[in-house]
């Protein structure tokens, strides 16, 4: 409205410059040096990352892990949001409450309970053995299937809430019009509801994806020490190997990869918005 009001953002902007932008700049500078003292400039850290297949296979599996968990979230999150948007106000509150419960419960606690569920003598294995589906306990803990399942549970709210927001704004007359004109429920879903709620789905995908690939606690506790993803890789290089310049380079590569993916998804999201409003 006026200059005086935009000044209200200054304290937070100052904190961000001093404690967010500056650290990232220092990180970039450090990644271009061979040692922490930062005397000579070099690209050696990046060369090392991209010439060693071990490194980029970790990057690749991390990015893929996010895709798998995000797809699982869309598959289950969309029906939840769809049903929620069609429920009474009271039922809606209950459903949203249940959906946000996991994201507010400490991530360490959530992951801990999954260890009890997925373990060799965990609930899933007990049920499978009892049903006779499996004859010996199957390995779920320390496998990628386990990690994907847990990530989907932990990050589901980030998918459901944006879809729900967009879906409750869709004019119900559109669905009625579609049905009056003879389209069935499935056709109405494909041709009306899904295209119109696409911006919410994309927003949900961006949030779940970025949360899944950086979920350090879940990845390390459920994935164990042998499944290495980027966050653990950074941590091991920084604290375990004490190789700060290389850890900095890995961090930068990871951040750039995330930014590219968010940028592409964001562009798709904007395109889908214009599609929704012809």
């Amino acid at each position, binding site marked *: 409205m006026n200059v005086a009001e935009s000044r209200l953002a200054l304290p937070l902007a100052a904190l961000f410059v001093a*404690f967010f932008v500056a650290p990232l700049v220092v990180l970039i500078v450090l990644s271009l040096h061979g040692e922490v003292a930062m005397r000579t400039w070099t690209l050696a850290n990046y060369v090392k990352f991209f010439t060693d297949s071990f490194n980029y296979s970790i990057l690749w599996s991390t990015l893929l892990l996010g895709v798998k968990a995000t797809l699982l979230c869309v598959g289950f999150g969309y029906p939840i949001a769809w049903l929620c948007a069609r429920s009474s106000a009271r039922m809606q509150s209950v459903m949203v409450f249940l959906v946000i419960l996991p994201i507010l419960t400490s991530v360490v606690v959530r992951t801990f309970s999954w260890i009890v569920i997925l373990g060799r003598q965990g609930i899933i294995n007990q049920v499978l053995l009892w049903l006779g589906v499996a004859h010996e306990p199957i390995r779920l803990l320390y496998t990628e299937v386990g990690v994907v399942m847990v990530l989907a549970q932990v990050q589901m709210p980030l998918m459901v809430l944006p879809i729900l927001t967009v879906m409750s704004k869709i004019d119900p007359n559109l669905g009625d019009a579609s049905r009056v004109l003879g389209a069935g429920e499935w056709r109405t879903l494909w041709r009306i509801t899904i295209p119109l709620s696409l911006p919410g789905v994309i927003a949900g995908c961006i949030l779940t994806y970025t949360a899944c690939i950086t979920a350090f606690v879940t990845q390390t506790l459920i994935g164990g020490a042998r499944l290495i993803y980027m966050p653990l890789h950074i941590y091991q290089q920084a604290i375990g190997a004490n190789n700060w310049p290389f850890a900095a380079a890995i961090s930068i590569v990871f951040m750039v990869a995330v930014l590219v993916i968010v940028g592409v998804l964001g562009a798709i999201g904007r395109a889908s918005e214009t599609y929704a409003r012809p």
Partner: protein
Amino acid sequence: MHAPRHALDWEAASLRVVFVAATLVAMVFLIAPTIIVLITSLTASESLKFPPSGLSLRWYYALLDADQMQRAAWNSLIIACWTTVIAVVLGTGASLAIARSRSKWMRACDLLFMSPLLLPALAYGFAALVYINKLGFSPSIALLVLGHVVVCVPFVLRTTIASLSQLDPSLFDASYSLGGGQWMTFRRVTLPLIAPGLGAGAFLAFMASFDNVPVSLFLADERTEVLPIHLWQQIDSNLDVRTAAASGLIVIFTLALMLIVERMVGLTRQMR
């Protein structure tokens, strides 16, 4: 006329059945872990078997002697409180500026303030460690709080900006024309109206800080060990049943807080 109507009903039913089934599966999937933690924490035995062979509160009593865990919990609580206070004060100002301005600078600020939500938090935590190390500081509670504010303030901004954008601008004109100054208008008109959004944001920021691992991992030292990291290390090394009791306590604490916040500001409405 009969056949198509029949087909239509069947189709509507099939869609509902598929979506209700998917929702039910997802809901079980979402809620079961919370319930299982609570039941496991009541076990009477030395192991984490589910279902437990007997129920007792012995592991909750055992927490009374867990000095290290208690110290970590206390640290986490203090850090989360400071983080919330700072995030709310700075976040309210920034929200007012962002919600009422259309300038390019404010759009850029909005993007900047939201970016900690999208960037890998662990990479930021490491960057912060490198940075304070270069400046010659060593990790401390104050620096840890600042790091938490950066990653938690987006929660305050999101809900507060959403509440602000729903306000009717004529309310401010009315207040000004009745002689209310800027501060008076903020305190008597704006603040009461955005309080629910601000409250929900503060709650989310508090929980995010209390639960933060990626930043604390780098900025906390031996003295400032926080609860989630302590528990993470416990789970990673030896599965102590006291961890289950601590987890049970956290679940109860979270549920109680959620219900209070829902009653006070309508948490579920603010998050949509």
